[in-house]
Structure formats: structure tokens, C-alpha cells
């Protein structure tokens, strides 16, 4: 039994289908660059726009500086578990893969967090596979409550939940929820999400709406480029999603991430390779089409590309990441989700930002529940 389409899914059904953008005429491109918008995004993403990438990047940089200034928010992922009941063809945690599995205890989660706090981080993202027994709602609430005195900004990237669970997590002090749709193409989604709760496209797509309605104040969405054969269509869809969420939930900040598929234990091969130039084009065009959305870039991408993209469109970065549970204190005990490319330390990434004239923002949050009042 699948979930009914949510509000954004119905909105998408009412708008023209997203397909590979038609070839753009030179006049279209001039107009799109002069007055970029969500409507002109297919033109900005077209192959015909690639020769004008520098111009696109310059426009994107202006918009990024105007909206976000010279501040780049830093965060670290904290993998709490790689146990998973979903089968996704591209993921190193997929159910059935014979890999070393581990779920951290709450105390182990706190120990990992202390290490990250020691490195300067005050914004943490708890990440897990999809296992509602090992990574239950109670477990996540316990993690958030335990981390709350230590970490002012806590987000989760886990399976999707019911409204009640999102509300419990918010009451415990959760700030953000991240759910990537991976691909907005329903047919390709069905081919790559074979079993488990994640198989339900509509449940997943509507989960960001449930989270926002429960009071989550930061929403992260994204698409995994290379998963569908038409990466441009996914960029258009994720931009539409971001702008729609911002209008529907005006109190909520929305960030977008466009990870490219990386080697993992799944052995998955992307349907299409997105070149570095096309990747820059995707992020610059996204910035212009959704100027108020934060753009997140992980350590999946190599240092040189990250350093370039932060000058164009990116506003939030991870640094010094490990993608395996326990990977900061006890590396090598569990399978990582994917391999990372930028292996610089957090301090090195911060130094790069400062040298480029940006303010590395380690802390831009405060405890969302009254920690002192709850201490014995």
C-alpha cells in the first residue's frame, strides 16, 4: 500500500512534465541570463548554455553574495547506524549487502559528537540507514536529548517518519530534517528503490511537508545526479520543490544538495556521468532559479571543485567527514556509505574559506529547548 501523493506531488502533476529541456535558441539564452528565473532554468541547464558557463557563474556569484554574504555554514555528518531495511541499488548500506553493520549506542553517539565539537563543529547532521527497529523514533529522540546540551544545531537524515515523530523530535530540540528524493522521475525511482519504506515515492516526497508542518525549521532536499538518465530534469524538479516549499512553509529554511553518485559497496554505475563543468552549471543555474535556497556541498566532491563552487553558489559545507558509524573515534569498524574525495581537516577547510575572503560559520544557532531548565 503506497502513500497518497502529498501537496507538492499534486502540484507537480498539475505543472507541465519535466523532461530534458529543449535545445535553447541563442536569444533564449540571452534572455535567461539577463533575467534568470525558475521558468528559464531548463535553458540555463541546457547543453547550449555550457559555452557560457563563466557568465552563468558570475551571475550566480553576484546572487549568492547579495543573499548570503560572505558567510559559509560548516557542519559535520555523524553516522549513527548503517543498518537498513530498504534496498536501493546505488547505496552502500542497502539491505542484503554483505557489509559490516553497526548501530552506535546513544553514549557512542555522544562520544562521536564530542570529538566533532572538539574540532569546532556546532552544527551536526545525524545520518543513518533505514531501520525502524535499530534506529527507532525513541532512539533518535534519545540521541537528540543527549546531544542537546552539547550541540546547538541538530539535524537528522534518516528514514521518513510520521507527523508525530517529527513533532517529538522538534520538542526534543531538533532543528532540521534532510530527505533527498534522489530522483523525481517516478519510473526511475521505482527501478532503483526496490524494497522497504523508501520504495514509496509519495511517502518520501510528502515527508518534508509533514516535517515542516511539525515545526522543523530547516529542510534539506536533494537529487542524486546520475541516478536517472536525465540529470537536468532532476535539477529542475528539485528547484521547483525548493521554491514550492519556501512558499508553502514561510517559516522554514530550505537547502538543496545535488550529490553526484560516488563509488560505494553497491557497485552501482551511474546512468549518465555529469562532468565537472556540467556540475558547476547545475549549481550555478540552481542558485539563479532558487536564489533564496541554501546550497549544500559535501566532501564527496574533491577539494579543488569545492573551493571553486563556494565562490559561485555553495553556502553550506561539511568538512573532515566520515561516512561510517563510529568513524571519528573508531574508524574501520563498519561499512562506509560512500567514499569521500575532500579529505582535508575541518581546520584546513576553514583556512581555505578565510583565505578566499569568506567567514567560516561554525555556530549560527542556539539551543531550541531550554537545556538549563531540564537539568536536575
Amino acid at each position: 500500500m503506497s502513500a497518497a501523493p502529498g501537496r507538492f506531488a499534486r502540484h507537480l502533476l498539475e505543472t507541465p512534465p519535466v523532461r530534458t529541456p529543449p535545445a535553447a535558441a541563442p536569444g533564449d539564452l540571452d534572455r535567461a541570463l539577463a533575467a534568470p528565473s525558475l521558468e528559464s532554468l531548463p535553458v540555463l541547464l541546457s547543453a547550449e548554455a555550457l559555452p557560457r558557463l563563466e557568465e552563468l557563474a558570475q551571475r550566480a556569484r553576484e546572487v549568492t553574495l547579495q543573499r548570503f554574504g560572505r558567510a559559509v555554514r560548516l557542519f559535520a555528518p555523524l553516522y549513527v547506524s548503517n543498518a537498513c531495511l530498504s534496498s536501493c541499488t546505488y547505496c552502500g548500506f542497502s539491505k542484503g549487502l554483505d557489509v559490516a553493520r553497526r548501530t552506535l549506542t546513544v553514549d557512542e553517539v555522544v562520544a562521536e559528537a564530542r570529538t566533532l565539537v572538539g574540532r569546532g563543529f556546532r552544527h551536526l547532521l545525524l545520518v543513518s540507514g533505514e531501520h525502524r527497529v535499530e534506529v527507532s523514533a525513541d532512539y533518535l529522540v534519545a540521541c537528540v536529548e543527549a546531544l542537546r546540551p552539547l550541540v546547538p544545531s541538530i539535524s537528522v537524515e534518516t528514514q521518513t517518519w510520521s507527523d508525530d515523530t517529527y513533532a517529538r523530535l522538534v520538542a526534543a530540540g531538533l532543528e532540521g530534517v534532510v530527505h533527498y528524493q534522489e530522483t523525481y522521475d517516478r519510473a526511475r525511482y521505482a527501478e532503483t528503490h526496490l524494497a522497504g519504506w523508501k520504495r514509496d515515492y509519495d511517502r518520501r516526497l510528502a515527508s518534508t511537508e509533514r516535517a515542516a508542518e511539525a515545526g522543523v525549521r530547516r529542510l534539506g532536499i536533494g537529487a542524486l545526479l546520475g541516478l536517472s538518465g536525465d540529470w537536468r530534469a532532476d535539477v529542475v524538479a528539485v528547484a521547483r520543490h525548493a521554491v514550492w516549499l519556501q512558499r508553502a512553509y514561510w517559516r522554514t529554511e530550505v537547502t538543496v544538495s545535488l550529490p553526484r553518485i560516488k563509488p560505494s559497496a553497491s557497485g552501482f554505475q551511474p546512468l549518465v556521468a555529469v562532468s565537472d563543468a556540467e556540475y558547476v552549471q547545475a549549481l550555478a543555474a540552481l542558485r539563479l532559479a532558487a536564489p533564496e535556497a541554501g546550497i549544500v556541498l559535501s566532501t564527496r566532491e574533491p577539494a579543488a571543485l569545492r573551493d571553486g563552487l563556494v565562490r559561485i553558489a555553495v553556502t553550506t559545507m561539511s568538512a573532515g567527514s566520515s561516512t561510517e558509524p563510529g568513524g571519528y573515534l573508531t574508524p574501520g569498524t563498519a561499512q562506509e556509505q560512500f567514499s569521500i574525495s575532500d579529505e582535508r581537516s575541518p581546520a584546513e577547510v576553514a583556512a581555505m574559506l578565510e583565505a578566499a575572503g569568506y567567514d567560516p560559520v561554525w555556530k549560527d544557532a542556539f539551543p531550541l529547548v531550554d537545556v538549563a531548565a531540564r537539568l536536575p
Partner: protein
Amino acid sequence: MPSSADPWNVGGLQLTSRLLVGSGKFRSFEVMRAALLSSGAELVTVALRRVDLDRAGHADGNSGDVLDHVPAGVHLLPNTSGAVDADEAVRLARLGRAVTGTALVKLEVTPDPRTLAPDPIDTLRAAERLVAEGFTVLPYCSADPVLCRHLEEAGCATVMPLGAWIGSNRGLRTRDAIEVIVAQAHVPVVVDAGLGVPSDAAEAMEIGADAVLVNTAIAVAADPALMAEAFALATRAGRLGHLAGRGEVLEGASASSPLTGFLT
């Protein structure tokens, strides 16, 4: 009226400079510090969400937080930016008082992360509670004359109506409303947000604002320290222009030497 000493007062704190500055958006703490020094500001506002409230010390690569870089002798004005409702603002103000030891607070309640427009309803609610708890409250607010009266009646030490959307550098877009607010106020009026160039600050001061608060325009300038000095001079110039009393605005020209003077 002496042109040298022209002090004003915020909740019992005597100040000479009428330029308040913010500490956000600078590319580094060193640049911020240099700009604060050349601004001559005596009151600097600091976002509590950017401060390590437990002052837990810092790791390699983390050069401390803003509190470690404010010049000695400059008064801190903690602000509640990031608060989305009255409850959060009150809680953040209490944390700020515990960390900084000052009862001054710049109240900001901004539920819309895109415009950062102040919420008039929850700003007033939070102001009432904070005044009752003994805070000296400086509320960032919409340029609304009636709201400013309510905030004054609630016991706020100033009102801080916005000149334009925060961070926009658009100038004194709310001039008509500010003129009314200035005319009616019994507390200092500090024009906050949106002032983009020194002449905007001069304009606000000329129409009778008691002070201005500038952050983005200084922080994002190519030379923030130089821009800070320019804002200080413009604020002073605007203030003197206000004190001097401008001449009447006339429809046509008015000869400075009467044409009929020869008759007497």
C-alpha cells in the same frame, strides 16, 4: 548648542557616538575589529547565536567567536537574531545576559527567514516580558508609528524602526514613517537596517533620529574600516545638520539680498 559634546542616553548608559554597529558578515574577526575601532562606536551588537554560550574553548582552526574580538571599552549589545517567536527571544536574551553580564538586549524576532522582517506581535510580547525581567530592551521593529508607541509604553529603552529590509543597503525607504515616529517618541529613535551608504545615515539623522545602526553596509564594503569612518562622519554631520535647524523649503528662489533693500 555645543557642537562637540552631544551625549545621549540608552537605559542609563551615556553615549557620545550616535553610530551603533553590528558585528556580522565581516570576512574575518580582524577586519571586524578594525572597522569597529574606526567607527568610533561605543555600542556593538552581537548575535548570540554566533557566540559559544558555554564559552567552551575552541579547536584548531576555530579562531574563537565574536566576543573574543570586540575592542576593549566598547559596550556589548547582545541580540536575539534567529529567534522566531517571543518565547525563543526571551530565552535567548536570558542566555545572553548570563554570558555577557549586560542587561542590554537588542530584541529581534524574525519568523520569516527570507525577508527577516520583524514580527510586530511577538516583538511586543517579548518586550513586555523582558522589561518585566529587568532587561534594557532595544527592539528592532517595523517602521510603524503605532507599534513604536506600544513598544515605548511597554517600557523599551529605545525604538529601532527599520530603514529598509535588513541587509538590503536600499537606504531610508521608510522615511515618511520615521518622521512620524521621531516626532512622537519619548525614547531615542535608532534607525536600524537597510542603510546602505553614509548619506543614508546622514539623512536619518537630519530628520531627527537619535542614532543609527549599521552593519551590512560596513561589513561588505571593499574597505570596511574606511566605510566605518565614513558612516561615523556622516552620522555626525547629519546630527549637526538636525541641531542646526534647516531653512524653510520654498517653492521658488529667495534672494539672499532683498531686491528692495535700497528703499530703506
